């Protein structure tokens, strides 16, 4: 999996490319931790190129969301494919994460 960061004002947009599973989760966790520790507490995750997310991936996102919240920041996401969207909706995580349809919507109101 590849991770690309873009900056839009105070917000860091993290694009996840590939699969977020047990193998790639530690890298992703380290990446998010690095951003948070560097003071980037407003993060938007771009799911547009993410194929698959496993429980390990969920764990990374939940832990990051919790951490950012504790620091007064926020984790938002957009571009979820149908499968991921369904998992988020049915499991109820869409209420924790603030899920948006497009990047513009996600960036609005930060």
């Amino acid at each position, binding site marked *: 999996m590849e991770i690309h960061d873009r900056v839009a004002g105070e917000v860091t947009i993290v694009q996840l490319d590939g699969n977020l599973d047990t193998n790639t989760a530690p890298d992703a966790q380290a990446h998010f931790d690095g951003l948070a520790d560097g003071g980037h507490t407003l993060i938007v995750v771009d799911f547009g190129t993410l194929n698959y997310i*496993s*429980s390990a991936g*969920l*764990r990374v996102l*939940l*832990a990051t*969301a*919790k951490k950012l919240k504790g620091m007064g920041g926020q984790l938002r996401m957009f571009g979820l494919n149908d499968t991921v969207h*369904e*998992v988020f*909706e*049915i*499991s*109820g*995580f*869409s*209420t*924790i994460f603030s899920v948006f349809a497009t990047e513009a919507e996600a960036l609005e109101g930060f």
Partner: protein
Amino acid sequence: MIPEESPFRARWDLLIAILVVVTGLVIPFQVAFVRGVGVWGSILVYGLDLFFLLDIRFNSRTTFREHGLEVRDPKRIARRYRRGMLPWDLLSTVPFDLLLLPWAHLALGGLPVVLLLRLLRLGRVIRLQVILRRWQRSRSTNTGYVRITRLLMVVFLLVHWVACGWFAIAVVEGLSADSWVARAGLADLGIGQQYLRSVYWSFVTTTTVGYGDIVPIGTLETAFAIVVMVVGASMYALIIGSVASLVSSIDSSKTAFWNRVEGVNQYLRGRDLPPDLTEQIQNYYDYIWDRYRGVSAPALLKDLPEPIRLEVLFHLTKELIEKVPLFRHTGPALRNALLMALEPQVHVPGSYVVREGERANGIYFVSRGTLEITAGPQSTSHGTLEPGAYFGDLSLLLGERRTASVRALSYSDVFLLPAREFDRLKSEYEEFKEVLKVISSEKTEKMAELVIEGVIL
């Protein structure tokens, strides 16, 4: 019109049943032992007649069931009664003997004709059959008790009749020195003594004990004794058979259940199971009996047509419906589909509902009891699940193996929505996903914590 299953009809039936037995006791006793048309005896008999005349009136207005439907048309009710029981009821109720009262002294073989004519009233026992059938059908009475009542009535009436008949034989023989009454030295004793000895002979003979202290000598006595022996032997068989089947049928569900448990126990006994497992099995059955009276709901429900099954399920799972958030947000159609799809499970303390490493098989809803989430080799606790909680959704949605186990801490009732049913409902009911979304938001915080801890259920 009187509904067949009305409380009034039930109470009246009970009264009539008692009066039939009284009739069956009084009339033969008057014929054999009293042998006189006394005032009080007559008042009693005609007083009883009034009740039975009233009964005829009620019977001709009592609804009946045909092809499962209650017939309420008065004409059909009357016609059915006219063609069925009415002739019998009239014959056993109309006091024909009143016509002969002026000739009350007329006797046949020493027995007053008026009294002999009163024997027609014994035909009333037929009404018992109708009443008992009604009792047997009514839901509130245990058929076992109805059968016991019938058995007791048959036995006591029969013994009484045989006793009266046995004494009447002696009377017909003129209570001569050859009659059994004279030989037993009863001729000059009071009615009470005479009746007691007659009943004694009746019991000794019908139960096939046959001490032989009172024996038939004359032709009439011998013939009567033969008939009593034949009847007695049949009655004996009836009693033995009935009592045996009664004992088991009084609580047939209990017997069937514990027989099944005994079967399981016998199977396990020879297989050297660890004692605590055996005890767990025993506890499971105890609980099942305690909570469900041994009736396995799915088996029972399979027989029922779908609408009734839904009604029953709705009532059985009322507790669940009130507690599980899932049902609070579903419409009637989805709720029914869910009820039909859910599989009830019972877990004893210490037993595992799901285990770490298993593949998802569905979503579990807790309806009763407390369950604990444990994970890892040390079985580290990750909190408990109370009634209303559910689990199993995440591993199902993600298609992953569980990373934790759920163990019952107390006796627990859970309902499983199997994976295939979950998929079916999801595709058939658009509403289902929305409902899941709503209810999952109610438990997200706790679930998020669990996921962060690495617990996937």
